[in-house]
C-alpha cells in the first residue's frame, strides 16, 4: 500500500538540493539574497505538492534530478495514478513575467520550455486525453500573479500583435516559430494539437489561430497559477 508522502523527508532532501542548487546557480546574486527567492520557490513547490496535488511517494518519479551533474532539469515528474507528467514551478513576480516572458528575454528558461515541448512524455499543452493526467504544467505562484496575466505574457512571447485587437495582421514571433517547430517535431503533442493536419504550413496557420485567444486551453491550459 502507498505510504503517505513523507513530507519531512522530502522537505529535508528537497531543501538541501535547493540550497546546493542555489549556491551553484544563483550564488552569484548575493546582493539580492538568493535565500529569499529560493525559499519562496521551494515553499511554492512544496505546498503545491502537499496541498493541491496531494502526492504520495508512489506518485513521484523524481524531483530536481540534476544536482550531481550540475545541469538543471525539471522540478517534478510524476508517475502512477496521476500520470507521468512534468511539473515546472515558477515563482515569478509581475516584473519577471513582464521582463522575461512578455518581452521575450527568457534566456535558458525558454530553452527549458522547448525541451519540455520536445520531450516524448509531453503529449498536451492543456487538454490531455485524461483530464486527471496532464503531461505538462507550468505552475506559477498565485500570490505573485494571476493566471490571465501570465497567459497574456505567453501570448506575447508566441505572437506579434496578437494582443492588439486593432491590428489585423498577426504573425508568429521568432520564439513562436521555435515553439511551433518543437510541437511539430513531437508526434504525440502534434496529434493532440493539430489532429489529422499533416501539412506543416496548414498547421502553422492553425497554431496562429489557436494562440490568438488566451482562453484556448489547447495551447494555454498548461499555464496554472495557484
Amino acid at each position: 500500500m502507498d505510504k503517505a508522502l513523507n513530507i519531512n523527508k522530502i522537505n529535508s532532501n528537497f531543501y538541501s538540493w535547493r540550497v546546493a542548487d542555489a549556491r551553484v546557480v544563483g550564488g552569484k546574486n548575493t546582493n539580492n539574497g538568493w535565500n529569499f527567492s529560493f525559499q519562496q520557490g521551494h515553499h511554492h513547490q512544496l505546498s503545491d505538492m502537499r496541498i493541491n496535488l496531494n502526492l504520495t511517494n508512489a506518485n513521484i518519479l523524481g524531483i530536481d534530478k540534476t544536482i550531481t551533474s550540475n545541469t538543471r532539469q525539471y522540478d517534478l515528474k510524476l508517475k502512477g495514478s496521476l500520470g507521468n507528467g512534468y511539473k515546472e514551478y515558477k515563482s515569478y513576480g509581475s516584473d519577471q513575467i513582464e521582463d522575461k516572458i512578455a518581452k521575450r528575454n527568457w534566456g535558458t528558461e525558454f530553452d527549458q520550455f522547448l525541451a519540455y515541448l520536445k520531450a516524448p512524455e509531453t503529449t498536451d499543452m492543456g487538454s490531455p486525453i485524461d483530464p486527471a493526467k496532464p503531461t505538462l504544467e507550468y505552475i506559477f505562484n498565485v500570490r505573485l500573479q494571476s493566471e490571465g496575466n501570465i497567459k497574456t505574457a505567453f501570448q506575447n512571447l508566441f505572437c506579434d500583435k496578437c494582443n492588439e485587437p486593432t491590428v489585423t495582421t498577426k504573425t508568429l514571433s521568432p520564439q513562436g516559430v521555435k515553439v511551433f517547430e518543437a510541437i511539430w517535431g513531437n508526434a504525440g503533442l502534434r496529434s493532440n494539437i493539430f489532429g489529422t493536419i499533416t501539412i506543416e504550413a496548414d498547421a502553422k496557420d492553425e497554431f496562429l489561430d489557436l494562440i490568438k485567444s488566451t482562453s484556448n486551453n489547447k495551447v494555454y491550459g498548461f499555464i496554472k497559477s495557484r
Partner: protein
Amino acid sequence: MFKINFSLNNIYRFQAKNSCLVYVKKIDKRNLFIDNKLLAEDIGTFIFDGKNIVYDNQKPDILIYDLLNKKMELLLPEYRLGEILFSNYRTHVGNRINQIRETVFYDYKERKAIFINSPLPTHEVNGNLLFEQPTNTTLKSINLETGTYNWEVDLSVYISSVLGVFGNQLWIYTGTDELMSLALDTGQVLQRIRSNDLHPAVSNANLVANAVHFEAIHGRVTFLKDRDYLEFDLATCQVIRQKSFDTGNPYTDWAFSVSSLDDDYCYFVGNQGRDAGFAQWVGVLNRKTLEVEWSEHLGKQNQRDFWALTKAPISDGNKLYIHDSEGTLHIFEKEENA
C-alpha cells in the same frame, strides 16, 4: 556493440531506410541531402519510402526523385506535402486557392487523388482506410474500392493509438489504458484487456508513441516504459516475457523513454540512475536475455542545460541513428567483432 562513427549538426528531420540516409539540414533554409549530397535547397518537407524521395519546395511544388534511376520529376505543381506516408505510396497533399484550403489523399505511384476534402484518413489497414473523428473516440472504416463506409463505431473512450491487425482483429490502445480489439469487417468490440490485468507496470502509464510496439507478424505487443519491459501475446492473451529494471538501487536502475525494436533487440533512449528526467542515454536491450547489452551516455557536463534525447533511435543496416533535441544526429556503427 556500437561505436560512434560521426555526427551531423542542424538536422531538422531524417529518415534511414535500405542503407540510405535522407535528411533535412536547417540553418537559414531547409536543404535536403541524400547520403551527404545536396539534392534540393529551401524545401518544405519530405517523405522517403526507401525508393523514392517526395518533397515540396517553396513555390510550392511537389517533386519526386527516383533513387534507383536518379531521376527527378515534377509531381504536383502548387501543392504542399503532408508528412505521413501510408502504405502503398499514399500521402496527404494540400493547396490553397483564394484562402480556401483543399486537402487531398493522394497516391503518388498511380498519380491520382483518392479523396478530396473528405476527413483525412489516419491509418491504412488491410487496404481500407480508418478515420478518427475529432473527438478521438469514434473510428470509421472506409472501403477504398467502393468508397463506402464499412462501419463506424463510437468506443466512448479516447483512442490513444491504433496498433494494427492480427488474427483478423484490429488492435487499439485506449486513453484509459485498455488493449482493445475490434472485428475488422464490422467494427464490433471483441476483446477488452485492462492494462491492470496485463501487468501493473503498464497500468496508468499514460503511454506515449514509441513506447508501445505492435508486431503483427508475431501477434505481440511490447511495452518498454519507465522501468519495465513487457511482451504480451495477443493469441493467448498471456505475458510472454517481462522484467522490471527497478533494482532497488537507484544508481543502477534504467528508466526508458522511447524506443524502436527488431526481432532481437530494443533500441532505446532513457536514463540510468537518478536522472529519471530528460533522457541522456542510448542503449540496446537484448529481447531474449532482457539484459542491456550496450549503452552510452551522450549528455555532457558542459552541455547546454536542457539537452535531451527525445526521439526513438532508428536502426538501419549496421547503423544506429539518434537525433537529439538540439538537432544533432549521432550516427553509430556496429562493431565488427560484436
